[in-house]
């Protein structure tokens, strides 16, 4: 499933980033495929905020759908 469906406050592992530009940028920022991240906030219909090692990135909702995590 997409990371947009992960509940706020929980941790998840990024399995795949299905957007080549975003994959490149997120890899540089340290939010690469295989990274364990925490979902810090989901703005209704808006961006999802991820946190890892005390650093945050915000990604738009459409993009968050294409950041795949393992569903469990």
């Amino acid at each position, binding site marked *: 499933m997409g990371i947009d469906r992960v509940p706020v406050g929980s941790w998840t592992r990024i399995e795949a980033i299905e957007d080549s530009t975003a994959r490149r940028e997120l890899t540089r920022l340290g939010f690469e495929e295989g990274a364990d991240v925490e979902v810090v906030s989901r703005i209704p219909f*808006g961006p999802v905020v991820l946190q890892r*090692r005390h650093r*945050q990135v915000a990604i738009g909702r459409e993009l968050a759908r294409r950041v795949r995590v393992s569903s469990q």
Partner: protein
Amino acid sequence: MSGTHKNGADVAVSPPNAVASADPQKGLVVLAGNPNVGKSAIFTRLSGTYAEVSNFPGTTVDAMRGIWNDRPMLDAPGTYGLGEHSEEERITTGLVKDAAVIVNVVDAAHLDRDLFLTLQLAESGVPMVIALNLVDEARKAGVEPDAAELEQALGVPVIPTVAVKGEGIDELAQAIGRARPGTWQLNGADDMARRRAADDLYARVVRRERKRRRIADWLERASVTLHWGLPMLALSLAGIYFLVGVLVAQNLVEFTETRLGQELWEPFARSIIDATGIGGPIREILVGEFGLFTMTVTYIVFLLAPLVAAFYFSLALLEDSGFLPRIATLVDRGLSAIGLNGRAVIPIILGFGCVTMGTITTRLLSTKREKTIATAVLNFAIPCSAQLAVIAALLAGFGGAWVFAYAAIIIAMLIAIGTTLDRALPGESPPLLIELPPLRWPRPNAVLKKTLTKGRWFMQEATPWFAAGALIVSVLQVTGGLDLWQRFLRPLMVNWLYLPAEAARTIVMGLVRRDFGAAGLYDMGLTPAQALVALIVITLFVPCVASIMVMAKEHGARTAFRIWVGTWVVAFAVGGVLARLLTWIGVA
């Protein structure tokens, strides 16, 4: 950037030590690093040239030039990596290729991210030193990196610094002479392998977990949720309105403009000119109604300067605290309705300071489509600080409802223009992807310096144009041209906008700069409804000459001309409809 750095495509993949023969004792020094790590602060310390320091990514869009020890020094735009994927990356990659020495500035408190670029720089084979900046923050968080370990792993000098306090700068300057190419080599050129290597290296040099900071940690999470973030945003906007719109625009300017300007300075200027015996049209041009030594000075010194300073002060607080990218996150959903993503809030907010500056900053948007939409929105519907100041001062006297009506109409126009362009332009805008920097207390010195630097820049930009505008109006007045122009525009003013015929004067001034137009409305004795119509027209009216020049440069003369003509049509169409609407609901 100049054309010398255009073909830097192969730097990231060039063989190690390819340029190792360059002498680190002379030649170009390039500062490279991630956005928002203090590169500009180090640049300022070393070269003595002021480069803007902010707490949001992308402050340096162009490379800053300076001189250090008789050597050229460049502050490259911040990037997270080398390559060809964005304007900043291309510029930085090209500069790295030309450099004799690279100073890689890294954020010691967020080293895991920064090491990706550091490894790429080490792979380039250019002699380098690492400035381990913000080491005080890292120490406070309990994650101070082991500089010796990092030095050993990469084979280059590593110097801990706190650039904003000047710590470690002398040591860094000495280390530049000892710069060496990195001993690092990557087996496999892909980003994923480099990321893993950076993470492994991070684990070697930072062995502890970060300490919790109760308030800051909470704020960093809360500020990007709707239920906490929106009230915080509303509170900061209210704070800015109170400072700029109430304290300065009403209380301070009332004193400086009336007491100091009109009652002290202007009579003094007139007495000086009268003592020299100058009379007739020359006197009128110098100290008349629109005089160069009367109205121009009063407006620039006693009205505009305090307002612009207050505005840039507020902006500096927003920038340096790290709140701006969080605002981008909060408004992303809203901006996507007009074909932009949250990132565009940065040029738009800067546009409220100066539309010209906002237009330049549209460069940090990634596609031409977004740049076009943002530029149009800025130049049609965003009033700059000077204009905003005059508007606030004029409307606040009539009460909050009029201020609200003005804001609502301008926002509606912004949405209309954005939506139209979003539909009309082909393609799609890219999604938001933005790093959120840590929240920091703004440093008083930095805020003050930024306020003064930007304020002075703005005043230098505005003063000649204002003087030129005043001169044109004065000359038109003494030659009778103003009456002619008023008679010519009379039907438009009186029958279409329901304004006094003299309002046509403000249009002449508005052609040079919109805020002068607004300023001219001050003493016209307008009713609240007339003031609202006039201000809406002048807000939507042609952008200032400087903005048009920047637009022509960034987007071509044709786009600039279209926007210029478009503003005439939109301004008068909306103004006329509004005037009728106000009459119809009975408030005019």
